[in-house]
């Protein structure tokens, strides 16, 4: 079996098991939980199995190269004289053919980055499945709806990370937007939640559009540059393999990158698109925990990581990512410290952390001089991301739990630890990770980030600003931790009862559920926070787990493990100084009553304002274009036709030649006398139509037109067309008889602009006539003097072996028109009757029957 199938099964497993829970009886809650949990478990196992089989050779190489880098050293790890990563083989992808004719296939790339993300998604997904049981309790309605949607979400996210084919990734990317929309708007009857879900959907959907544009542009631009025989780069692995041939300063490539960056920035809630993320708090907490720690918002970070090794060398890359990331980081921290709702606090710290991750990828593309060679300015991306997941998910889980049982408003949580010690402990332990206290992975990760900035300052002193931003953000995080702990433990400095209690707090207290499933409200959080401390105290264990991913991620950076906390403390420098400064000042700020007033993020007004502008602007545009006047629409259609035809005549000289040759063929006009006379009859009745006032007379004149055309068909021996036209005339007369009496009284209108209309009519008439003339020459020989018409005629009844289009069978009928309609071009006919059916459905729904419906 193709290994790609294993990955595909892994991706689809959560969706399938989620959907299967729908088949279980409503009350079989435990079975549902177990079945839903099976999805991420299967995904986890299959990802490991599939990836190791795909990338065995690749990873073995990498292992050989870096066996000596098992432990990390901040200062002396780049001792080799050459770039040690230059000769790692490229990651390969495996393909499941899907539509080979269109070059579409399912391609999966299982390099370190995607495997890491996939394991993160499925691992935390498992915890979320369990937590959802604790959170929703034995509520069959909620759980029955929740697991399928969560499975959909998980599949979408897994699909993003393992897709090699860029458009395939986009498909899953949009799936995350849709599934998160469903989850954020979970409470269908809460108008605010639905509105926020729309806000998230619009924002990330817009980013998805930009990403789509960027991927198309990159593929097309690379094709224009002659890459891959002009087919362009449509796979990440192709991009990695061919990046040296790609002209990165080509404006198309740069534009493609910018569009892709917009996609990443909206998904990862970078300023100024960050407002949707705190809004996404309307979702139930299991969703928030998943969304913020492992999924959706990380998709943008993942994308930045995907493009870093290749497009990262574009000049704008570091400045864009570092700039926006830094602003987002600072803003998120500053707003977070002023919030009162636990979920909002953590949402803004997530925004802040996402900014940090983006900035980190920006730094990752910088190279600084180190002795006689250059090196990337940063280590470790996966640690930074995993570290965030391992404190943010527990924070949300505990926040949801305590909000469920007590309140989510921090000012009402004084002494809550003594009431719910387990949840309180998870909150405090995870909060310590948020504060990046020594002993957690978070501390080392923050240290590494500061270290990277410090190295970047040797490239440009502007990076000191980023350093200051990071310190301020860290102070905010520490202060949040201090307040949280002081409040929970009822220490001085806690956020005691606040006069303006948060208005959003409408959560009423629930009785805690007892037993095993009741404990599920905090156990997943606890399990997730443990790695923070294990990794913090035993970095070699952490490295053993995450290093493989780092190594095989096909980066020439990000390849060294977490340093131990003792190493960092015994080797002080700027980074340590900044960390300690942040810790110290954070503790002070945490106990001070500063920044305690709950504020509203001004950016929350951006989306409503933009939405209002779009709606009203669209309304104005709509009123201009869609006037509801039929004659204006007709005019636009006909003028467009005229313009197109004129353009065609100007650009294609063959059309004039075709006209003259057709005209030249008609030498003996008197041979066509019957046709000409009937044509004159058509023209005469058509000209009379606008001249009369009465509707009935007009209908009759129109009928005269139609019946003359029937005559023309008969003269030129087209009985099928004549019959059709005849029946059509009959039906239309019937329709007119019915409809005429319904029309309002025909008042004589002042015919303003009549001359212009006459001119336009004549012009369009001439052009239609001209097109008919050209159509006469359209029957070009397709091969060996065979025209399409003659091929159809010959194959009509039985197949003609001599024909270039020959099939062994013909249509089985001697009426070639009908054979074309139902056989040769049968698919067109099918499309047409479908359109007719849709039109009929339109009529039936616009004009609902007032008669008692007929029962069949």
């Amino acid at each position, binding site marked *: 079996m193709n290994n790609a199938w294993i990955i595909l099964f892994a991706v689809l497993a959560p969706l399938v098991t989620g959907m299967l829970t729908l088949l279980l009886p409503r009350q079989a809650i435990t079975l549902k939980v177990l079945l839903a949990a099976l999805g991420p478990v299967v995904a986890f196992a299959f990802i490991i199995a599939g990836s190791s089989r795909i990338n065995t050779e690749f990873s073995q190489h990498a292992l050989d190269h870096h066996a000596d880098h098992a432990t990390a050293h901040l200062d002396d790890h780049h001792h080799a004289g050459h770039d040690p990563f230059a000769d790692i083989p490229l990651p390969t992808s495996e393909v499941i053919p899907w539509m080979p004719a269109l070059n579409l296939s399912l391609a999966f790339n299982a390099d370190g980055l995607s495997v890491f993300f996939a394991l993160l998604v499925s691992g935390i997904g498992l915890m979320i499945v369990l937590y959802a049981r604790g959170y929703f309790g034995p509520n069959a309605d909620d759980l029955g709806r929740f697991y399928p949607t969560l499975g959909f979400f998980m599949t979408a996210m897994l699909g993003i990370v393992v897709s090699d084919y860029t458009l395939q990734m986009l498909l899953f990317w949009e799936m995350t937007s849709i599934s998160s929309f469903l989850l954020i708007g979970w409470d269908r009857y809460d108008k605010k939640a639905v509105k926020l879900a729309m806000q998230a959907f619009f924002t990330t959907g817009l980013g998805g559009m930009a990403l789509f544009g960027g991927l198309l542009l990159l593929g097309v631009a690379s094709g224009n540059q002659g890459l891959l025989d002009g087919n362009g780069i449509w796979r990440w692995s192709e991009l990695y393999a061919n990046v040296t041939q790609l002209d990165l300063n080509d404006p198309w490539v740069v534009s493609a990158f910018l569009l892709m960056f917009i996609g990443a920035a909206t998904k990862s809630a970078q300023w100024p698109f960050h407002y949707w993320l705190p809004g996404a708090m309307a979702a139930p907490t299991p969703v928030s925990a998943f969304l913020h720690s492992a999924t959706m918002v990380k998709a943008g970070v993942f994308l930045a990581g995907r493009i870093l090794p290749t497009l990262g060398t574009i000049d704008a890359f570091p400045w864009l990512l570092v700039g926006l990331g830094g602003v987002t980081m600072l803003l998120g921290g500053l707003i977070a410290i002023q919030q009162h709702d636990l979920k909002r606090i953590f949402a803004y710290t997530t925004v802040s952390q996402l900014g940090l991750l983006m900035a980190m990828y920006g730094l990752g593309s910088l190279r600084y001089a180190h002795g006689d060679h250059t090196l990337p300015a940063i280590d470790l991306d996966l640690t930074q991301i995993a570290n965030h997941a391992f404190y943010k998910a527990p924070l949300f889980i505990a926040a949801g739990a305590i909000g469920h049982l007590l309140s989510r408003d921090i000012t009402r949580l004084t002494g809550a630890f003594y009431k719910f010690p387990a949840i309180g402990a998870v909150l405090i332990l995870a909060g310590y990770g948020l504060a990046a206290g020594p002993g957690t992975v978070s501390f080392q990760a923050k240290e590494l980030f500061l270290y990277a900035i410090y190295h970047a300052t040797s490239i440009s002193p502007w990076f000191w600003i980023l350093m200051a931003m990071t310190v301020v953000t860290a102070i905010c995080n520490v202060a949040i931790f201090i307040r949280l702990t002081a409040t929970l433990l009822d220490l001085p400095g806690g956020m005691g009862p606040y006069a303006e209690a948060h208005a959003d707090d409408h959560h009423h207290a629930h009785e805690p559920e007892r037993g095993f499933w009741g404990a599920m409200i905090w156990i997943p959080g606890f399990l997730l926070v443990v790695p923070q401390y294990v990794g913090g105290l035993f970095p070699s264990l952490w490295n053993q787990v995450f290093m493989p991913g780092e190594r095989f991620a096909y980066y020439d950076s990000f390849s060294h493990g977490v340093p131990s906390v003792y190493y960092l403390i015994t080797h002080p420098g700027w980074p340590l100084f900044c960390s300690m400064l942040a810790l110290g000042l954070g503790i002070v700020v945490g106990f001070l009553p500063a920044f305690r007033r709950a504020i509203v993020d001004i950016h929350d007004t951006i989306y409503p304002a933009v939405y209002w502008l779009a709606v009203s602007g669209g309304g104005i545009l709509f009123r201009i274009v869609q006037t509801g006047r039929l004659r204006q629409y007709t005019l636009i259609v006909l003028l467009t036709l005229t313009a197109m035809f004129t353009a065609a005549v100007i650009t294609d000289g063959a059309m004039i030649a075709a006209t003259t040759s057709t005209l030249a063929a008609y030498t003996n006009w008197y041979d066509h006398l019957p046709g000409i006379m009937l044509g004159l009859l058509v023209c005469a009745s058509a000209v009379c139509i606008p001249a009369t006032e009465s509707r009935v007379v007009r209908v009759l004149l129109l009928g005269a037109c139609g019946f003359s055309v029937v005559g023309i068909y008969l003269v030129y021996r087209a009985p099928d067309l004549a019959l059709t036209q005849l029946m059509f005339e009959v039906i239309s007369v019937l329709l007119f008889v019915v409809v005429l009496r319904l029309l309002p009284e025909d008042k004589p209108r002042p015919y303003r602009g009549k001359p212009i209309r006459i001119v336009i009519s004549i012009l369009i008439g001439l052009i239609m006539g001209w097109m008919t003339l050209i159509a006469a020459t359209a029957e070009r020989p397709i091969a060996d003097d065979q025209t399409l018409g003659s091929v159809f005629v010959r194959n009509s009844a039985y197949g003609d072996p001599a024909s270039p289009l020959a099939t062994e069978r013909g249509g*089985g009928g001697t009426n070639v028109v009908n054979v074309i309609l139902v056989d040769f071009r049968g698919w067109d006919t099918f499309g047409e009757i479908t359109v007719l059916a849709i039109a009929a459905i339109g009529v*039936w729904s616009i004009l609902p029957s007032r008669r008692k419906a007929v029962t069949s």
Partner: protein
Amino acid sequence: MTTLILRISMRLILPIGLVFSLYMAFKGHNEPGGGFIGGLMAAATFAIFRMSSGAAELDKILPCHPRILVSWGLGIALVTAIAPLAAGEPVLRSYLWDIYLPGGEALHIPSAAFFDIGVFLVVIGICVGMIGRFSEELEL
């Protein structure tokens, strides 16, 4: 329009019209005609009948909503179109069956005939439905 003359003559016109429309629809593969024309013809017959005798009478001879006709027609056409896929052939691949009737005559049945029946039903359903719906506006 429900005059006595029209109503009485419809008794004659209706069966002739319907039989002729069927004839048109089925002979269409070899001579002028076909599902579309036959459908229009049947629809015109039904429409005139409805005008002469009223909606209630039409319900008696066409005891289902026209949308049933449309959906059956679309369904038949779709099945005809995709049936060859089951045999690994392209969509709408045509087959020709020869059935030898007693007396030595052969009846040719091309698979496209079923497609034509689908078109026939769709066209009848649409035309009858639309004209009926517009007529209701008049009657009420």
